[in-house]
């Protein structure tokens, strides 16, 4: 057994205090926002709101193309749909489209893409449905700085079901029934989201916009 003589006391006291000091220090990592490395990253509850908004914009986009494709609305309503939907995107926002017979897709600006869906729907009804397969997760947002502009980037993956109905298909026909479609495909699409910090009349706020929609896979 080791005996503790007088010269060991200061050493023991030092170690005891050292242990207590480290024990008392809060672990910073418990509080670190792991979502983004932004110098002024939104807090978690704000990120949740922004992610919801992004998802809502994606929903709004697919609702629009669904409405344009079925050709059940008046020309005036379709014009407002196109106008509203264009505003969901950044200024030069693009949408890629690819049929299952093509190896590479066609990229159009959003207004041209919507006009194309509208024209196709007027020619022969299109039924478009969708489901979000990979939602926007706040902790997967990546922060970048472009000039003075802070931008958070993320993506949502959507599976789109597209059916160009046969000319005499009845309105109640199920788009899932391939037999009713002249053409059909299932496309996995990646919706690239941008969030920019902007000064507004109500202080600084993050503006959520769709940057582009790209095709991941068609079958």
């Amino acid at each position, binding site marked *: *057994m*080791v*005996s*503790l003589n007088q010269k060991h006391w200061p050493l*023991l*006291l030092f170690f*005891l205090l050292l242990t207590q000091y480290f*024990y*008392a*220090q*809060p672990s*910073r990592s418990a*509080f*670190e926002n792991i979502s983004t490395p932004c110098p002024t990253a*939104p*807090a*978690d*509850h*704000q990120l*949740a*709101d*922004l992610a*919801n*908004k992004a998802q*809502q914009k994606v*929903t*709004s986009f697919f*609702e629009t193309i669904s409405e344009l494709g079925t050709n059940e*609305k*008046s020309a*005036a*309503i379709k014009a*407002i*749909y196109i*106008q*509203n939907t264009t*505003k969901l995107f950044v200024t030069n926002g693009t949408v890629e489209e690819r049929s299952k017979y093509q190896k590479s897709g066609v990229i159009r600006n959003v207004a041209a893409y919507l006009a194309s869906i509208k024209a196709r729907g007027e020619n022969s009804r299109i039924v478009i449905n969708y489901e979000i397969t990979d939602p926007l997760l706040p902790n997967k947002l990546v922060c970048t700085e472009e000039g003075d502009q802070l931008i958070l980037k993320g993506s949502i993956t959507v599976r789109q079901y597209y059916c160009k109905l046969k000319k005499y298909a009845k309105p109640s026909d199920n788009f899932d029934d391939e037999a009713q479609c002249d053409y059909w495909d299932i496309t996995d699409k990646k919706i690239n989201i941008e969030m920019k910090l*902007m000064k*507004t*009349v*109500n*202080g600084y*706020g*993050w*503006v*959520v916009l769709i940057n582009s929609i790209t095709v991941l896979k068609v079958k």
Partner: protein
Amino acid sequence: MKIAYFILLTLIMISCNNQQEFIPITFVFEKPLHNQTKYPPYFYSIAEPFTTKCGEDKFDILLKPIAVSRLDISNKEVATNAWYFEGMGENTVEFSKNWLSQYFKDTTVNAFLLEPTIREASVEQFLFKNKESCLIYSEDSPEPTLYDLPVYSKPQPLKKAMEELICKKHPENIYVLIVSDTKLSLTDTGGSAVAGNLGSDNPFQPLIDHSKSDEERLAEIDGIITKYFTSTATVTEYGSNKTIVEPAMPARDYMNKIALFRTLERIEIMEAEKDNSGKIWNIKVIEHHNTTN
């Protein structure tokens, strides 16, 4: 042997500590915190543990647990987890100070404190019930007293008063009422304003009435603008956690958008700022969608 010395030394150190008193503290608000993502610095300054002398005895006062309450929502108290670290070591004043200051520095503010007002806060009623254990704090109140109680504008004098309160009255719970000089968040905009859900007066209601056709809903827009809004009015949309998610959209654009939304079920008005003619020039809203579609 070495272990025995270690235990002995630790026991000696512990025995040197003051007597500890745990007193729950509740921060009571009469309106939501605006534009805050972190706790305001006064939270930590007020809740900071401290040592005080009552008569001949010294006490370590640990204000825990820490709760928040909103007089403009309900009387319930919502616990914070500011003392989540209490099982991690000996809760000395120094140990707790370290963790607590870090918590208030780094943690986002409890979402309950950001929720919109539901009812008029009755400060008088609250003070009537809790006068004996309540201290009032306001960074911007022009009045030195409120219902005969002093209003502290800095945390340190409030802490002094708290020491005195603890020594003299041994309260079971301490309430710190946080008041502002503006009673309603909407009255400081220069015009009049309305808060909360306006129910049948909600100007957007006709636009989310799905019993009407798209054309009928869109046809309502001109009338709504003429009746309720200035020509340059803007709509700011907030998320459910009170984050701006759509800043300053022209009112007409906003109405064009919502009139064609299929998933929109309800629009909650957080705040409507009016000019002198009584027309809304800026309105803050939260959209409630049916997400099961």
